[in-house]
C-alpha cells in the first residue's frame, strides 16, 4: 500500500534530501533563515495540493486560498481552546478545511470550465467578506485572530502550570519557532510530496487524468466522474488546510487577507510557473516565487545604486530609476509580467523549459538526429 515504484522512490529520496538540506544550499543564496524557509516549505505544500486538482483534472479553482484561511483559523482556535501542541492543531486544520472543501466542491463541481472557476471564486469571496464582517466573533475581523493571555487552553491547563508571557506552539516540548519549525514544515512537505506521488501513480490518478483529457468520453464509457473530481477537490482542499495550519504553527495568527482572491491567484501562478501536472513543478514554482518575492521586496534604491555603480554617471541613475520600479514595492509588477510571459511563451512552466533544453542537448549529442516529427493523433 505504501510502496512506490523504484523510480518514484529514488525521486522521493532526492526530494527529501533537497528539502532537508535547504539550510545548506540556500545560504549562498542569502535565504537560509528559518522564517523564509518555513514559508518555502508551506507554500510548496499548498502548490502541490493545488496541482492535484488543477494539474490532474484540469479544473481551475480560483478560490483555493479560502481553504488556506480556514486551516489557519482552525489551527489558531485549537491553540486558543485546547493546547499549544501542534499535532491537534494541524489535524483539525486539515479536517476542517476538508469539510469545507467537501461542501464547496459538491456544489461547484456541478459546473466545469469557467463556470467552475467563477463558482469557486464566489465562494472564496463570500468566505473572505464574511470573515471580515459578520464572523468577527470567530475571526476577529480586521485585526486577525491572535493568541491572548487569557485563552482557556483546556488541555494545557490540566497538565502544566501556565508559563509567563504568550505561549508558543510546541511539539513534544520543542518550540515550533526557528529551525525546529522549519524541520516540522519540511517533514510535512516530504509527506505531502509522497502522498502526491502515490496519487499520481494510482489508478485514481489515472482516472483524474482521463477526466482532464476528455470528460465526456469518460462519461460515455459508463464512468461516473463526479466522485473522482470531488475526491480530488477535497484532497487539494485538505492540502491547502494543512498549509494554512502550518502557517499558524510557525506564526500563530490568522487574518482574512489570506483568503483574498489575489492569494488564490498566487497559488495558480506558482503551479503554472513550475509546470502544471508535473510532480516537482509546483514545488519549484512556489520556491521561486516566494524566494524572489523575498529578495525583490528587500531591494531599495540605495542597494540598486551600489549594484549599478559600475555604469557611467548619467546612465546609472536612469537604470536605477527604471529597475527600482520592479523591486521593493513594485515586486508585484515583476510578478504580473512573469505571469504574462510564462503563460504566453511557456505554458508548461519551468519543467517544460528544462525538458526542452535537455531534449535539444540530446538531439545535438546524437550523430543522426531523428528529424521526424512526433506523430500527431488525428482529432
Amino acid at each position: 500500500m505504501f510502496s512506490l515504484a523504484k523510480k518514484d522512490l529514488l525521486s522521493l529520496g532526492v526530494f527529501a534530501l533537497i528539502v532537508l538540506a535547504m539550510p545548506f544550499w540556500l545560504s549562498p543564496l542569502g535565504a537560509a533563515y528559518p522564517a523564509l524557509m518555513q514559508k518555502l516549505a508551506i507554500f510548496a505544500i499548498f502548490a502541490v495540493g493545488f496541482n492535484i486538482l488543477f494539474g490532474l483534472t484540469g479544473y481551475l479553482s480560483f478560490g483555493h486560498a479560502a481553504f488556506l484561511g480556514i486551516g489557519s483559523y482552525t489551527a489558531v482556535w485549537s491553540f486558543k481552546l485546547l493546547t499549544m501542541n501542534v499535532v491537534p492543531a494541524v489535524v483539525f486544520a486539515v479536517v476542517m478545511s476538508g469539510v469545507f472543501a467537501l461542501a464547496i466542491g459538491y456544489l461547484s463541481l456541478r459546473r466545469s470550465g469557467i463556470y467552475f472557476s467563477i463558482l469557486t471564486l464566489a465562494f472564496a469571496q463570500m468566505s473572505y467578506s464574511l470573515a471580515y464582517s459578520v464572523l468577527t466573533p470567530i475571526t476577529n475581523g480586521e485585526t486577525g485572530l491572535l493568541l491572548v493571555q487569557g485563552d482557556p487552553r483546556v488541555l494545557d491547563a490540566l497538565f502544566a502550570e501556565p508559563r509567563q508571557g504568550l505561549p508558543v506552539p510546541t511539539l513534544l516540548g520543542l518550540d515550533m519557532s526557528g529551525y525546529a519549525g522549519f524541520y516540522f514544515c519540511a517533514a510535512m512537505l516530504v509527506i505531502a510530496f509522497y502522498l502526491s506521488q502515490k496519487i499520481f501513480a494510482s489508478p485514481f490518478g489515472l482516472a483524474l487524468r482521463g477526466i482532464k483529457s476528455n470528460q465526456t468520453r469518460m462519461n460515455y464509457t459508463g464512468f461516473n466522474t463526479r466522485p473522482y473530481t470531488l475526491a480530488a477537490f477535497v484532497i487539494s482542499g485538505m492540502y491547502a488546510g494543512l498549509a494554512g495550519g502550518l502557517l499558524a504553527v510557525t506564526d500563530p495568527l490568522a487574518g482574512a487577507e489570506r483568503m483574498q482572491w489575489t492569494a488564490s491567484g498566487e497559488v495558480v501562478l506558482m503551479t503554472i510557473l513550475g509546470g502544471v501536472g508535473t510532480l516537482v513543478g509546483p514545488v519549484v514554482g512556489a520556491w521561486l516565487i516566494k524566494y524572489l518575492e523575498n529578495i525583490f521586496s528587500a531591494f531599495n534604491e540605495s542597494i540598486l545604486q551600489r549594484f549599478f555603480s559600475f555604469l557611467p554617471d548619467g546612465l546609472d541613475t536612469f537604470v536605477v530609476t527604471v529597475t527600482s520600479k520592479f523591486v521593493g514595492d513594485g515586486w508585484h509588477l515583476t510578478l504580473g509580467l512573469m505571469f504574462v510571459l510564462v503563460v504566453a511563451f511557456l505554458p508548461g512552466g519551468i519543467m517544460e523549459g528544462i525538458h526542452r533544453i535537455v531534449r535539444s542537448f540530446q538531439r545535438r549529442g546524437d550523430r543522426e538526429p531523428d528529424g521526424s516529427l512526433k506523430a500527431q493523433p488525428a482529432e
Partner: protein
Amino acid sequence: MNVIFAQLLNGLDKGGAYALIALGLTLVFGTLGVVNFAHGALFMLGAFCAVTFRYLITLETVTVDPEKLSPWGAPLEIRTPLAQNWLGDFGAVLIDYSVPISILLAIPVMLVIGVVMERGLIKHFYRRTHAEQILVTFGLAIVLQEIVRSVFGANPIPQPAPQDLRGAADFGVWLGMAPNVLTYPLWRLVYFLFSIGIIGAVFAFLHFTTFGMVVRAGMVDRETVGLIGIDIGRRFTIMFGIAAVVAGLAGVMYTPLLPPNYHLGMDFLVLSFVVVVVGGMGSLPGAVAAGFLLGILQSFASMTGVKAIIPGIDQIIIYLVAVVILLVRPRGLMGRRGVMES
C-alpha cells in the same frame, strides 16, 4: 414605500457601473470569445484618465506677493492655475467641470489602450483554453494596476464633482411628494443617466449601423462572415477598443462617487464577472439587466432592516445570487441555449 423607492434609486448608480463593465466584458466575450480578466483594470485606467486630466489642468504658477503677508508672517504665495491665467473665467469652468470633460481625453486614450492590448497580447490567445486566457489577462491586470500604483501612488485620489452637480436633488418633489422626503445626490443621478446613455449608444451602434450589423453577424457565425470576404478580425479588434472605451468612461464618471485607487479595477472585476454570469454569458441585454438588478439588490441588502434579519447579507448577496444562478440556471437570465451551458 419611500424607503423602498430610495433604495431602488441608490442601487441605480452602482448598477450602472456594473452594467457598463459587464457590457464591455460581454462584448469582448461575444466577439472574440476571450474571457478578459483585465477588464476591471480598464475601468481603473479610465478613472485615472480623469485624475491625469485634473492634474494637468490644475497645474499652477506660484507668484510671491511681498506686499501681503500670510498669517505666519511669510510673504503670501498666490497660486493661480495656468488654465485660469490663459483662459480667464472659462478656465475656471474648465477646472470645475474637469471630470466630465476628461471624457474627451479618455475616449482616444482608452481606444488606443484597447486596440494595443488586443493586437499585442489577446490576439495570441484566441485558440488557447479559457483557463489560459483567464491567467494571462489576470497577469496583465496585475501589471496595469502596478504601473498605475508606481505612477500615482497607493492612496485614493478624490475627484470633486462640478460645483453645480454636487448637491442633492429633491427627487420626491418631482414625483409629487412633499419636499425633502426623497432626496438623491445629483451626481448619482447624472451617473445613472450617463450609463443609460452609453448603453443606448452601444446598442444603437450595434443595431443601426452597417458596422454593427457585421459585428453582430460575426458574433453568431464568425466563419461564414469571414467567407463572405469581410475582414471580421479587424472589426472585432475595434470592438475590443470600444469595450475598453465603455469601461474607461464608466471609470471616469465614477471618480466623484469613489476616489480611485490602483486596485479599484480588481474590486469591480470580480463583481462584474458575476454580473455577466448572472445575465448569461454572451448576452448583451442580459449583462445590462443583471447589472442594474444586482446593483439594486445590493442596495436593498444593505438596508438596516434586512441586515438585522440576516447579518452580513450585504457583503455576500451578489455572490450568493451568482452561486444560485449558476447551479440552477447556468445560462443565466438571458443567455442563449447551448452557449457555455455545461
